[in-house]
C-alpha cells in the first residue's frame, strides 16, 4: 500500500509520471470508445491491421529521419484508403483487404528496419510501448487527436450508430456510405497512431477490443456500453501504469493484463449469461 501512496506522491513530483498518467487516461478512454463501434461492426481485425500500417510508417520515419508520429499517421491513413479501394474495386470483403495489407505493411516495416545501419531503441518503443517515455510534444499530439476524434464522434454519433446497427438501412435513410465507414476507420487510424508510444503496436488492438467487449457483457444499452467501455479502459490504463511503476514491469503488458482480467470479471458477472437469466442488467 505504501508503494501505491509513493506512486501517487511521485506523480506530482516527476513530470514524466504526470505525463504518463494523462496519456494513459486519454488513450485508454479514446480507444475503448472507438472499440464499441469496432466490436459491434465486427471490425476487430481493423485495429491490428491499421497498427501494422502505422508501425511501417514509424519505421520509415526513423529510416529517413522524419517525424515518426506524422509518418505513422500518413501510413495508417493510406492503409485505410487502400482497404477501401481494394475492398470496393477488388470485390473483397474488408477483412480480406486488411489481411493483405496487414502482411504487406509488416513486411515493409521489417524491410525498413533491415535497411537501418544500427539498432534503434526508440523505434522499438513504438513496437512494445513505453508510456514513461511520453514527451510534452507527444502529449500535445495526443491531446489534439483525443479532442478531435471525440468531437467528430459526438457530432456524427447518430450516423455512426445507425451504420453500426444496419448499413443498408442507414444508407437508405440518407447516410452517406461508404464515407461514414472511411471516416470511422480514419478516426481509428488517428487513435492508433496516438496510442503507439503508450501501449505499442503489438498490443494496441487490445485497448480497442477488450474494454468494449467487456462492457458489452454488462448492458443492453448502447450509451451505457460506451460509458462502461471508457471507464474500463481508463481504469485499466491507470491501474496497469501504477503496477508497472511499482513492480518495474512493461506498462503496455500490465495494462493489457488488467484489461483481460476486467473481461473475465465482466463475463462472469454478466447478466446476459444464461445462468443469470432472471437477473436484471446493470443498467
Amino acid at each position, binding site marked *: 500500500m505504501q508503494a501505491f501512496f509513493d506512486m501517487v506522491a511521485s506523480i506530482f513530483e516527476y513530470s514524466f509520471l504526470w505525463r504518463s498518467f494523462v496519456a494513459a487516461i486519454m488513450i485508454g478512454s479514446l480507444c475503448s470508445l472507438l472499440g464499441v463501434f469496432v466490436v*459491434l461492426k465486427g471490425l476487430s481485425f481493423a485495429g491490428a491491421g491499421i497498427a501494422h500500417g502505422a508501425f511501417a510508417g514509424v519505421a520509415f520515419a526513423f529510416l529517413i529521419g522524419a517525424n515518426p508520429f506524422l509518418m505513422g499517421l500518413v501510413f495508417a491513413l493510406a492503409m485505410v484508403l487502400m482497404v477501401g479501394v481494394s475492398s470496393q*474495386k477488388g*470485390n473483397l470483403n474488408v477483412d480480406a483487404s486488411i489481411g493483405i495489407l496487414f502482411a504487406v505493411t509488416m513486411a515493409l516495416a521489417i524491410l525498413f528496419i533491415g535497411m537501418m545501419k544500427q539498432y534503434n531503441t526508440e523505434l522499438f518503443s513504438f513496437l512494445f510501448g513505453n508510456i514513461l517515455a511520453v514527451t510534452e510534444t507527444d502529449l500535445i499530439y495526443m491531446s489534439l487527436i483525443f479532442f478531435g476524434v471525440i468531437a467528430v464522434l459526438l*457530432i*456524427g*454519433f*447518430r*450516423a455512426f*450508430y*445507425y451504420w*453500426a*446497427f*444496419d448499413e*443498408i*438501412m*442507414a*444508407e*437508405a*435513410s*440518407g*447516410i452517406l456510405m461508404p464515407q461514414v465507414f472511411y471516416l470511422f476507420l480514419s478516426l481509428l487510424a488517428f487513435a492508433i497512431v496516438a496510442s503507439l508510444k503508450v501501449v505499442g503496436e503489438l498490443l494496441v488492438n487490445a485497448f480497442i477490443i477488450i474494454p468494449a467487449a467487456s462492457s*458489452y457483457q454488462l*448492458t*443492453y*444499452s*448502447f450509451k*451505457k*456500453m460506451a460509458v462502461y467501455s471508457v471507464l474500463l479502459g481508463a481504469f485499466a490504463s491507470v491501474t496497469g501504469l501504477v503496477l508497472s511503476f511499482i513492480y518495474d514491469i512493461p506498462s503496455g503488458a500490465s495494462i493489457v493484463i488488467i484489461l483481460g482480467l476486467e473481461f473475465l470479471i465482466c463475463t462472469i458477472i454478466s447478466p446476459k449469461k444464461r445462468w443469470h437469466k432472471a437477473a436484471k*442488467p446493470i443498467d
Partner: protein
Amino acid sequence: MQKKFLVELEGVTAGYPGHIALEDVSFRVDSKEKIAIVGPNGGGKSTLLKVIMGLLEPTKGEVKVLGQRPYKNCAVKKKVAYLSQQSAINPNFPALIEDIVKLGLFGELGLLRWPSEEQKFRIIKALEKVGLKEMVGEPYSHLSGGQKQRVLIARALVASPSMILLDEPTTGLDVGSQEAILKIIKDLTDNEKITIVAVTHDQIFLKNWAKRIIKIENRLTFDGAIEDYLRGEA
C-alpha cells in the same frame, strides 16, 4: 394529363463491377399496390430494391420514384422506407426499442437536432401500430424475431413514408410471428394506404397479401396478378 406513378422503371440495367444483376427491366408501380417480388437467389431482387431506393445507379435505362430520380436523392429517401432482412442485423445489438424506432427519424433530424414532442409522440404511435407500445423502453435484444421485425416496421412508419420496401419480411420467423407481420402489413396497405413492395419467398405471404407479382430472373419474366402467377406455378 399523364398519370403519375409511384415508381417507374424503363429499360433498367444495373449491377456491380463485372456483373450485371438486372437487365432491361421495365414496370410501373401505382400507389396503394400490394406487390411481391419473387425470383431465384442471385436473380437480382435485392439489386432491384437498391435501384428503387437510390442506392445503386442504373447503367442503362431510367428509374423514377415519386417523379424524381432516386439516386443520391434525399427527398426520395425521406418518403421511401426500407427494411433489411433480419439476418443482416446483429440480434444482440445493444439498443432500446425506442432508440431503434428513433432511427427512422434520421431524415428529419439529421445529425444534431433532438426529436420534438410531436416526433416522440410519433414514435409511440408507430409502436402502437405494431402492437409494441408497452415495450418502448425494453432492450431490442430481448425481443423475439417477430417482435424485432415489428420494431423495424415501426422504425419505417415513424417517418410517414409513401412506400415501404421489405426484404424477406417473414423469413426465419415462426408461423405465429409470420401471421402477426402479415396482419400488420395488411393493415398498412388496406387502412393506412401505404404502398408496399416486398421481396419474398413466403407462399403464405404471397397468397394472403400480394395482388401483383413481379418475377425477376435477372430480367423481368413475369408481371401480373397473383392468380395468374399461381396458375402458372401449379
